[in-house]
């Protein structure tokens, strides 16, 4: 009872949004369930993505255990698809790792953004959370942490999102890897890979610098296809980033001129 009262007092201290905070995730258990409820519609979209990852792994020559392990241990779909694409085209491991670094650099961004919202979380819990810092957990956490108080409830919410998400990701991979050998090559299912990249990319383009970075990197990647060992990919990524930053700076100075 006593802890409950301090919790309510803490919530009231939050000010006008107090009631909303209390309704959203008043206990650890409710925070966990709330997270699970929030991720549920997205798990449906993760299943086919996992299935594509499983299929791609099998058609790249991995066996069932290797295919499922790749999803469970790396837990970063876009980089897995990129790695398989590169590995089958004969790229050396260094090139695959550099690509992994670039494709997964966004996790560093998420880590930077999540850190101030996880003040007080003990190191052990942080270590446990690391593996599950992905697009969806990051998006839901940053969206809803303002109305969840206390590190215990924030951690509970995080795992409420992460556990169903991870389960459906690995489950999707198991389905895809299981069917892998039964799918005829005539279906050209390998085309699902660039489609997944487009599905991840297109909805996030929110402003002009982002669009410019996308278009410039895309054109550059097409022009540099023949460069050896996929170095065109790296060059295009850097050119795209530079283009986005230049566009952002230009937009800013134009805004200042008008103001």
């Amino acid at each position, binding site marked *: 009872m006593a802890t409950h009262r301090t919790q309510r007092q803490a919530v009231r201290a939050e000010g006008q949004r107090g009631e909303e905070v209390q309704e959203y995730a008043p206990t650890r258990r409710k925070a966990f369930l709330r997270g699970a409820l929030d991720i549920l519609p997205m798990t449906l979209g993760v299943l086919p993505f996992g299935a594509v990852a499983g299929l791609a792994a099998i058609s790249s020559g991995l066996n069932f255990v290797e295919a499922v392990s790749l999803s469970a241990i790396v837990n970063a779909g876009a980089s897995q698809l990129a790695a398989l694409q590169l*590995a089958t085209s004969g790229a050396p491991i260094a090139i695959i790792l550099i690509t992994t670094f670039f494709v997964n650099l966004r996790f560093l961004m998420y880590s930077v953004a999540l850190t101030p919202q996880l003040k007080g979380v003990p190191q052990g819990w942080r270590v446990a959370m690391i593996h599950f810092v992905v697009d969806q957990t990051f998006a839901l956490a940053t969206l809803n942490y303002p109305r969840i108080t206390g590190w215990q409830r924030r951690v509970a919410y995080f795992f409420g999102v992460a556990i169903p998400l991870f389960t459906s990701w690995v489950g999707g991979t198991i389905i895809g890897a299981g069917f892998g050998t039964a799918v005829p090559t005539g279906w050209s299912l390998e085309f699902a890979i660039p489609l997944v990249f487009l599905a991840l990319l297109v909805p996030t383009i929110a402003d002009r610098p982002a669009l410019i970075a996308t278009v410039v990197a895309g054109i550059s990647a097409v022009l540099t296809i023949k460069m050896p060992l996929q170095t065109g990919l790296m060059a295009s990524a850097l050119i795209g980033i530079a283009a*986005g930053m230049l566009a952002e700076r230009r937009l800013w100075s134009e805004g200042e001129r008008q103001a």
Partner: protein
Amino acid sequence: MTVNIWLLIFLMMLLTATLRGSFLLLEGRITFPLWLRRALRYVPYAVLPALALPAIISVEGSYVLDAPKLIAAVVGVLAAWRTRSVLPTLVFGMGALWLSSWLLSSLGS
């Protein structure tokens, strides 16, 4: 495939965990300059099209303008833009690929 898959899985995990964990574990002990943080924002916009486009218009490093693939890519972009989700993008994109290659092959014969 010439690489050792278990070595690759291990190294990818290590690298990705470092990217995910660095800040969470070293809270306050490392800071990034502002320009680098701004650059990080454009990483997905630059990397994803660089991965997707060559897979759409080339086969083993040579340009191949394959009409069904181009049609499917355009349909995929539209589906991704309108629905903002992976599943319908896959359904419409693959559907467009199969339908257009079937139509083109039956027209050609």
